[in-house]
């Protein structure tokens, strides 16, 4: 029983150390890129998608985003947006809040439905 307790303690300490190291790295990265840190969640709702929503998102992308990210979203002044490894919530957060000195906020131009369509389009990029 003592061995079991020690093994549980060791794995807890290892996980806590790894997550603390990750939190430091996230904060440093966010500060250096001027992005707003956003905590990751174990359960993230996924944006619903459909061909119509993707088409709507593409139209919005060409209208609002293509002049920085390129018409094919492969990057130009802004980064390549293919195969993004961040959550849908984080994509929405960046669109809404922007990135100081790097990307404007689209909060006044794009509502929740438009951001959902844009996210669906970005997820379709492979």
């Amino acid at each position, binding site marked *: 029983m*003592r*061995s*079991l307790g*020690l*093994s*549980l*303690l*060791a*794995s*807890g300490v*290892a*996980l806590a150390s*790894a*997550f603390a*190291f*990750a*939190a*430091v*790295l*996230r*904060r*440093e*990265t966010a500060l250096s890129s001027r992005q707003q840190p956003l905590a*990751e*969640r*174990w359960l*993230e709702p996924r944006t619903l998608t459909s061909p119509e929503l993707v088409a709507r998102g593409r139209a919005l992308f060409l209208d609002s985003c293509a002049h920085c990210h390129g018409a094919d979203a492969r990057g130009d002044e802004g980064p390549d947006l293919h*195969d*993004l*490894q*961040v*959550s*849908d919530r984080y994509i929405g957060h960046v669109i809404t809040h922007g990135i100081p000195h790097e990307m404007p906020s689209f909060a006044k131009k794009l509502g929740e439905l438009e951001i959902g369509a844009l996210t669906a389009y970005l997820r379709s990029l492979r």
Partner: protein
Amino acid sequence: MDPEYWAKAHGAATHFPFALTLVSGALDAAGFALAGRPVVRDLHAAGYWTIVLGAIGTVPAVATGLLMTRGSVLGHGALRLHHLCVWPAFALLVALAAWRVSAGRRSTRPALGGYLLVVMLAAGLMSAAGYWGGEMMVAR
């Protein structure tokens, strides 16, 4: 530093704990199956050191992975699936090594049987994590 450097370092570092855990499980399983024979003691000694080295090997594997993803512990898509397998596997591997160190040679046969089941679970999770990690490399 260039994230590509950490991606290469992570690819190199992850194979050590993975291989050592699988070998450790195989050695202990062989020792379990061959109970009573003279070779059992050597098999369990080799299983002991390989699981301990495997647990130590998780430190560079996890550190390079976190540096590569700039601190993401979940992410999205294949990265999320990779992480959902990696974290339980990491916790299990450290727990298994700590149990072996703590229990020493005092473990009973039923306890060793339970230990082997948990090793199989950890190996399965590590294999799944490796699969999703490979998928991300292929996508690049």
